[in-house]
């Protein structure tokens, strides 16, 4: 597989009071077109990832909205897999091109979350879990990840300080990313002493509520080579599923679907975990970043926390992780996240990442998780 990313577009991430769901989506759409140097009429299909607009804005049918924004009548579809919706939209775009149905595709992600109360957001996000098994019990996503964190800490001896190294690093990266929601550094103490959300996770272990949109343009190899002499290539893509409810899985201390998705994506890309120069992973909660790193094979089981504490995941260290600031610091507009991860990898591979630029990066991986790991997508990008 060799599909070109020929344009990227991101809005600011954060509380964007003056922009609606449609405004955010349109802004990212127009930016990716502008960067690709093409006109709306060149777009043959559109796929858009979104999770919560039905619950938070009363708006489904985002596919039609995305086409309308470009004044197009082309096929335009919304894809949803909870927090993995963005990467699923990328996979839909890949399938459209690989099937020959389209040569140039726009892939977007969008979420508008700050129009409603936190309780409404919490309720809406529980749609990612199992409503009958988890939602009825009053479970929340911070709580479900806290269950995983505690089980992992017990099993592998991870300390609270090691876990806190994850958001500290995220905020360091976010401080160098102009679109990030939070651009302020944190200390280990800031994380540990923040208000407790679901023990052992504090507020600083949790990704925030964010508005934002992201967009990329995908094209066939020949078109990408013609239009862009610095295209980045999608060379592998994997997706795997697991039970909706955490309690229905064999282990609470791993996200098995990451392993399955990575195996497929790496095989397709012809790489192994050793070939990966940087990764964007789904750190909706700090524990999730460690599970992601281990699931991708970038650390042995139980060891990701030690690497984090040793500083290996900074942009200028051995294995740069979440150089954009991750979901924690860059923000987590759910549907936009998966596409934003791709944008960050593309910018890094094109040497456009400014102060947080990783040196000599040629292979980047993006891992996007839905729920507590019921859907995982892994996409591999190459220079």
């Amino acid at each position, binding site marked *: 597989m060799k599909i070109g990313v020929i344009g990227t577009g991101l809005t600011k991430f954060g509380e964007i009071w003056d922009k609606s769901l449609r405004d955010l989506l349109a802004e990212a759409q127009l930016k990716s077109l502008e960067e690709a140097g093409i006109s709306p009429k060149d777009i043959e299909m559109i796929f858009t990832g979104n999770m919560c607009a039905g619950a938070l804005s009363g708006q489904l049918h985002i596919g039609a909205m995305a086409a309308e924004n470009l004044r197009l009548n082309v096929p335009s579809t919304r894809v949803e897999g909870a927090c993995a919706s963005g990467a699923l939209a990328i996979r839909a775009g890949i399938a459209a091109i690989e099937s020959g149905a389209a040569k140039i595709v726009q892939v977007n992600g969008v979420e508008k979350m700050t129009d409603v109360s936190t309780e409404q957001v919490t309720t809406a996000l529980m749609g990612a879990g199992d409503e009958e098994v988890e*939602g009825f019990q009053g479970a929340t996503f911070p709580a479900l990840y806290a269950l995983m964190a505690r089980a992992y800490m017990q099993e592998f001896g991870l300390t609270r300080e090691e876990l806190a190294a994850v958001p500290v690093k995220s905020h360091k990266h976010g401080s160098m990313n102009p679109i990030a929601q939070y651009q302020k550094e944190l200390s280990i103490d800031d994380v540990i002493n923040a208000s407790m959300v679901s023990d052992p996770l504090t507020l600083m272990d949790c990704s925030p509520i964010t508005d934002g949109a992201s967009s990329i343009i995908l094209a066939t190899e020949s078109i990408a080579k013609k239009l862009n002499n610095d295209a980045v290539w999608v060379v592998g893509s994997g997706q795997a599923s697991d039970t909706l409810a955490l309690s229905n899985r064999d282990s609470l201390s791993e996200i098995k679907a990451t392993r399955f998705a990575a195996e497929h994506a790496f095989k397709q890309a012809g790489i192994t975990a050793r070939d990966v120069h940087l990764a964007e992973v789904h750190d909706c909660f700090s524990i999730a970043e460690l599970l992601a790193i281990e699931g991708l094979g970038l650390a042995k089981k139980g060891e990701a926390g030690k690497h984090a504490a040793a500083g290996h995941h900074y942009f200028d260290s051995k294995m740069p992780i979440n150089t954009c600031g991750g979901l924690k610091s860059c923000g987590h507009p759910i549907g936009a996240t998966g596409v934003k991860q791709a944008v960050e990898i593309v910018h890094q591979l094109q040497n456009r990442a400014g102060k947080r630029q990783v040196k000599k990066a040629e292979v980047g991986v993006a891992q996007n998780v839905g729920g507590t790991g019921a859907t995982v997508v892994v996409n591999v990008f190459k220079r």
Partner: protein
Amino acid sequence: MFRSTPIIRWRKYQERYNLMGAKCEKCGKLHYPQPALCTCGSSKFIAHKFKGEGTLLSFTDIGSGPEAYAEHAPYCLGIIQLSEGPKITSQLSDCKLEDLKIGMQMIATFRKFYSSGEKGAIYYGTKFTPKW
């Protein structure tokens, strides 16, 4: 989602009130709740009532829950491995976070969950509590 009609409550009555799960007719494996398929591939089950005893695999607390549980918070949540095998996500009642420890024995107890609106139905179900 917290339904404003009692239909869902009725449908899950046995499962939630009586910890009623399923036993595979073919291989005898126990499940909670009843799945579409057993690991052996069969889709034939008979009802099986779980004893309501198990081991705490992990736990946490929730300070601010979803809308329907707003007045109910704070509460503890855990995953219990039932003595018969299946795992269950459950609220933990009559205990504080400090009381809990991975590996401790838990037993089922019948409790109120939430009420739907001011005049709405009250929802009940099973919670787990430490076997002191």
